[in-house]
C-alpha cells in the first residue's frame, strides 16, 4: 500500500473518531448544564474545552447555545465537528480508490448534511438532534466500513488511527476529571461515596459511551475507583484504554503479517510496554501512586507510538528502504 494512502486512511479514521468524541462529549455537557445545582456552566464548558485538548478559540461567552453552535459548525475552528468531518472527507477524497464506494458515500453524505441548511434548522429546534445526526452518520460509516472494506493494510491503518485517537482522548478526559474525582479518593478511606459526585461520574461514563457497559460489569453502583478501573484497564470494552492499546498492537502485527515493513524494535517495545502497563497494573496501585502522572504517561506514549508509526511506514528514508 502506498505510504501516503496509509497516512490518509489513518487520519481519516482519526478525524471520524474525533468528531464522534466531540459530538458525544458536547451532548453530555449540554444535557448536564440543564440540570439544576451542581457545577456552573462556565466551569463545565472549561472542562469540555480541556477534554478536547484545550483549543484556544472557544472561550466561554455566557451563552451555552452559541458556544455549542461554534463547536459544531465553525468550519475554520480546528476542533469543531464540522472541521473534523471536513478533514476526514478530505483525506477520504485523496484515497477514493482505496476505500469502498459505500464508505465514501456515507462520509460524503455526512459532509453534505452538516453543511446543509437543514442542520442549521435542526439546531434551532434541538441541539441534541444535530449531534444525534452526526453520531448516526458516523455509526453508519463505521458499519459499512466493517461490512465492505477489504481486510488488508488499509483497514489496519484505519484501526490504528481510531484506537490511538480514542486512547488519547480517553486519557485526556480522565486527566481533566482526575483532581475532583480520583485524587482525594484514597484519602477519604475509600468507602464514603460522595453522593454529589454521582452525576459527574455518570456524565464521565456517558462521555465515553460506557455507562451501560459499566453497569453490566459493576451494576449501577458507581464509585470513582471502579469508573477509573473500567475506563483504563478493562480488556473487553472497546472504549477502555487497555482495549485500544490491544487493538493497536494487533493492527501493527497484522500490518507486518501482510508484508509491511518490519516494525522497529522501538515501536513494538513501546506498544508492548504500554500494553503491559495497562494489563498488569491494579487500580489500587494506580490510585495509591501518582494518578495524574500515570494518565499523563499514557498520553505521552500514545504520541510516541504515533510518531514511530509515521516514521516507519510513511516518512522513511530511501536509504533505509533500499538497504532493507
Amino acid at each position, binding site marked *: *500500500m*502506498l*505510504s*501516503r*494512502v*496509509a497516512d490518509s486512511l489513518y487520519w481519516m479514521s482519526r478525524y471520524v473518531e474525533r468528531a464522534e468524541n466531540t459530538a458525544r462529549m458536547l451532548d453530555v455537557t449540554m444535557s448536564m448544564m440543564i440540570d439544576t445545582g451542581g457545577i456552573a456552566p462556565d466551569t463545565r464548558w472549561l472542562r469540555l474545552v480541556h477534554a478536547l485538548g484545550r483549543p484556544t478559540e472557544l472561550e466561554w461567552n455566557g451563552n451555552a447555545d452559541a458556544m455549542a453552535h461554534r463547536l459544531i459548525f465553525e468550519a475554520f475552528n480546528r476542533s469543531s465537528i464540522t472541521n473534523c468531518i471536513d478533514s476526514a472527507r*478530505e483525506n477520504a*477524497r*485523496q484515497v*477514493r*480508490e482505496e476505500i469502498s*464506494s459505500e464508505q*465514501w*458515500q456515507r462520509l*460524503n*453524505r455526512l459532509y*453534505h448534511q452538516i453543511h446543509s441548511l437543514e442542520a442549521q434548522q435542526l439546531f434551532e429546534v434541538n441541539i441534541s438532534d444535530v449531534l444525534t445526526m452526526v453520531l448516526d452518520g458516523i455509526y453508519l460509516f463505521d458499519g459499512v466500513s466493517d461490512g465492505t472494506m477489504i481486510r488488508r*493494510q488499509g483497514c489496519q*491503518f484505519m484501526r490504528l488511527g481510531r484506537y490511538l485517537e480514542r486512547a488519547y482522548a480517553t486519557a485526556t478526559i480522565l486527566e481533566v476529571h482526575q483532581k475532583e474525582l480520583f485524587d482525594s479518593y484514597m484519602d477519604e478511606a475509600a468507602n464514603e461515596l460522595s453522593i454529589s459526585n454521582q452525576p459527574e461520574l455518570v456524565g464521565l461514563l456517558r462521555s465515553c459511551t460506557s455507562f451501560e457497559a459499566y453497569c453490566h460489569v459493576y451494576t449501577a453502583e458507581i464509585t470513582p475507583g471502579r469508573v477509573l478501573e473500567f475506563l483504563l484497564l478493562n480488556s473487553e470494552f472497546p472504549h477502555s484504554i487497555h482495549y485500544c492499546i490491544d487493538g493497536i498492537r494487533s493492527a501493527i502485527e497484522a*500490518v507486518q503479517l501482510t*508484508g*509491511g*515493513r518490519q516494525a522497529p524494535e522501538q515501536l513494538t517495545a513501546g506498544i508492548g510496554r504500554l500494553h503491559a502497563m495497562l494489563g498488569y497494573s491494579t487500580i489500587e496501585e494506580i490510585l495509591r501512586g501518582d494518578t495524574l502522572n500515570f494518565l499523563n504517561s499514557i498520553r505521552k506514549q500514545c504520541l510516541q507510538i504515533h510518531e514511530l508509526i509515521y516514521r516507519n*511506514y*510513511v516518512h*522513511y528514508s*530511501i536509504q533505509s*528502504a*533500499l538497504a*532493507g
Partner: protein
Amino acid sequence: MAINTPAELKSIFGEYPLDDAFDEMRSENGDVRDHYRALAQTLARLPESELQRHKQAADLSFLTQGITFTVYGRNEGTERIFPYDMLPRLITATEWERIERGLTQRITALNLFLRDIYSDAKILNDKIIPRELIYSCKHYRRQMRGLQVPRNVYIGVVGSDLLRLNNGEFVVLEDNLRVPSGVSYMLTNRKVMKRTFPQLFNSYGVRPIDHYPQLLLQTLRSLAPEGRPEPNIVLLTPGYFNSAYFEHTYLARQMGIDLVEGRDLVTHDNVVYMRTTHGLKRVDVIYRRVDDDFSDPLVFRSDSALGCAGLFNAYRAGNVTVTNAFGTGLADDKAVYAYVPRMIRYYLNEDPVLPNVETFLLGEEKERKHVLANLGKLVVKAVGESGGYGMLIGPHSTAEQRDEFALRIEANPRNYIAQPTLDFSRAPCLFGNQLEPRHVDLRPYVLYGDKINIVPGGLTRVALEKGSLVVNSSQGGGSKDTWVLE
C-alpha cells in the same frame, strides 16, 4: 419511409425551432428520424413527473458519490456536479462504422507523425509540413529526439472531438493527444441512463462501453517495458485539487491500480519506485494525467512540485513507460492540425475518412489578411490552448474584443488559427418536461496499445445555454450519454 410526427409526440416539443443546423432527432421537415422514434414515443408516454424524479435521484446520487468537478477560484461550493442531460444521443451503426474507421486511420497517422518528427523527420525533409511550424510549437519536446518508446506508441489514450455539420457529415474539430479527460462521465452517465430507461435501452440494442477500464488496463499493460511480465501499473495524478481528480480515482479503482502523486515516487539509478508501507516498490508503467511541463522538475518546469525528479531519465533509460509520451502535444497543436489530412496521405497513402474543419493559418500572409478582414465571421483560437480558453467567437464578439485579437494576431501570428463559425449539429435536451435543441459535439476515446481500440460511443458534450456554441465543462457545458446502436 418518414412518418409524420404523431399527435402525441407534438406535446413533448417545446420551443423547438429548426434551422440550418443538422438536428440529431428531427429531419428538415420536422419529422422524428427513424432511429429516434422509439425514444420519442417513450418520452411522450412517460408521466411528466417521472423524468424529473429520475433526474433528481440521479443528481443526488452524483453528489453523494462525489462525481463532481472543481470550479477554480472560489472558496465555498467549489465542487459541482457535472451537468448532464437525461436524453441519450443516438448514433446509428453505419454512422459509427465510419467514425471508427476514420479515427483509426487518423490516430495511426498521428502516431506515425510523432515517431517521424522525433526521429528522422522525413515529413519535414519532404517539405510536406514547414519545418518552422514544428520547431516553433510550444509543445515540441527536444528531449524526445531519438528516444525509443515501447511499440513505437506515443499516444496510448486519445480523445478526438468530432462535430456534425449541416450535411450530416462528421468532421474532426481537434485531437486531444496530451491528457484527454471526461471518460469517467461517459461511464457514469451510462450507469444512470441504464437505470432511467431500462426497457428502451434493451430494445434499442445499445453497444456496451462498460469494459473501457479493462481495455485501458490491457493497453497500458501492452506498453510495459521489456522483461517486466507482471508490470506494476500506476496512474499519476496531480492531486485532489485537480478538476479531473474524480476521474483519476475512478479509473484507478476500476482498473485496480494504485493512484499515485508525484510525492509518492522516487527514482534511484534510473528506476522509478513508489513509497509503500512495504518499502519501495518498482513502477513499470505510468498512465500520466499530469502535463509534460509539470512531470519532471529536472527536465521540464523546475518550479513544479507535482512531478517526480528523475522521471524523464528513467523513461529515457527504458525502465519505465510513461503514456501518453512526452511531447505529444505537438500533434494536437491547432496549426499542425491543419496538416493532418496531408499526414494521412503521406504516411498511409489513403484519403482521410473524416475530414478536417477548414483552417486558416495566420502565419501565412494571405490567409492572415483574409482572416483579419473577416474577424466577425470566424472563430480564432490560440494554437496551444485547450478547454475553450483563448478563443474569439466572431459572431458573438464585441468590436473591442475583435480589435484586441487583431493586435494579438499581428504580434504573434504563429500562435493563432482561424476557422469558419461552424453551424454544428443540435440534439434535443430536456428542459422542464419539454425538449429544446442544443448544440452537441462528440468525443470518442481511442486506446492505442498492441492494437487500436475504440469503445462504441464517447462523451457527447452539450452547450446547455441556448444558442451557445461552447461545450467545454469549464464554460457552462454539460454532457449526455451516447448510444451507438447495433
